């Protein structure tokens, strides 16, 4: 989906805050939110890493930005737990109000609704029998597509022509795995794009390397009239 998370090249953010001395967690709640999230993924909800990332992407952009990284993580955990019927919609808000002394009725427990999903192996790397479709040095075009669900093909490379630089280990496809539609293992390529191909002739000179799955790519000629 074309959400706020897909921010490569987006302007208007100002300077990145830089504090080389910061601790891993700047407040107690950040650590708790982080740890709850880790547990909420496979163990509590039966969901996977790609569904977890997609839960982040589905947040309203204001919520995505409002409380920073661990603010997003907290809402990601809540989303996964709600999706899987572990906690009820509105349960966190109700409990929070109760904790601060409001007189609230908490929602009843929902019906457990974990995805019918078992990973075929640990992690994301998966063998693929066929040889890679593209070779190192070959030109490829990132497809100009707008998938409705999760994808790891960002907008800023779509439709652009680059060069395959590495054949990376084959892996399951996040686009289908996030929605429990199959692991769909694919070859993955390290592809280099010139900055001017991405941002036009006025761009700073640099080369952008990005990892793209086989189904994100096509031969450059295919899309031409």
């Amino acid at each position, binding site marked *: 989906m074309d959400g706020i998370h897909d921010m490569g090249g987006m302007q208007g953010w100002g300077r990145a805050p830089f*504090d080389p001395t910061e601790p891993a967690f700047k407040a107690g709640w950040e650590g708790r939110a*982080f740890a709850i999230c880790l547990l909420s993924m496979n163990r509590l909800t039966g969901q996977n890493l790609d569904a977890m*990332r997609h839960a982040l992407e589905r947040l309203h952009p204001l919520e995505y930005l409002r409380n920073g990284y661990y603010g997003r993580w907290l809402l990601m955990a809540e989303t996964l737990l709600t999706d899987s019927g572990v906690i009820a919609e509105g349960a966190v*808000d109700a409990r929070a109000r109760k904790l601060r002394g409001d007189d609230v009725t908490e929602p009843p427990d929902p019906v457990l609704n974990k995805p019918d999903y078992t990973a075929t192996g640990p*992690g994301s790397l998966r063998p693929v029998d066929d040889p890679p479709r593209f070779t190192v040095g070959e030109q490829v075009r990132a497809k100009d597509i707008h998938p409705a669900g999760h994808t790891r093909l*960002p907008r800023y490379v779509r439709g652009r022509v680059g060069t395959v630089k590495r054949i990376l280990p084959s892996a399951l496809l996040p686009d289908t795995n996030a929605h429990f539609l199959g692991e769909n293992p694919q070859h993955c390529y390290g592809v280099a794009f010139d900055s001017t191909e991405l941002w036009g002739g006025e761009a700073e000179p640099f080369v952008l*390397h990005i990892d793209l799955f086989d189904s994100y790519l096509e031969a450059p000629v295919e899309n031409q009239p």
Partner: protein
Amino acid sequence: MSPVPVPSDLPVELRTEALESILVEKGLVDPAVLDKFVKTYAEDVGPLNGAKVVAKAWTDPEYKARLMEDGTAAVAELGFKGPQGECIVVLENTPTLHHLVVCTLCSCYPWPVLGLPPTWYKDPAYRARAVREPRALLAEFGLELGPEVEIKVFDSSSEVRYMVLPERPAGTEGMSEEELIPLVTREAMTGVAKTKAPAGHDHDHEHGH
């Protein structure tokens, strides 16, 4: 899928406490396990791991060769593995080639060697600008790169995790692996800084930089 949580004006601290309270009440989460996770990532898994890898690569050419050939296996030799470290690729900086690592789509980061990502890495400004104006961004971090330096930016869009092997600073020739470790920062291993020799070791500096 259920609707996403409705924007709430309740403070995030209180909502975190509320979620933990629900999960503990249901018997799904043990607060002691949460404590352990927090402690692990606050204290044990951090950039010191990566610094050890870098210092070893600087002082042991055979290790460096293995690290460049198979980063995952080479960092595992030092005991570093775990979540977000399934496939680690090391990128070597040189006087004419500088690597910068980013994750534009979320904040993927090589946890086993660098720990959890710092705020700047997770900030939209970094995520957005690293792939559009890396030179301007690096200058804001205090790193001015001349036009003779080629910049390669790596957007971590798959489960491959990238770590930068910084240049060993001039003036550190006599230093041991152990002595080199504290010079190697998280910033240098992500590509927003160079490593510097300690005061008195930096020849460039002594000779009027």
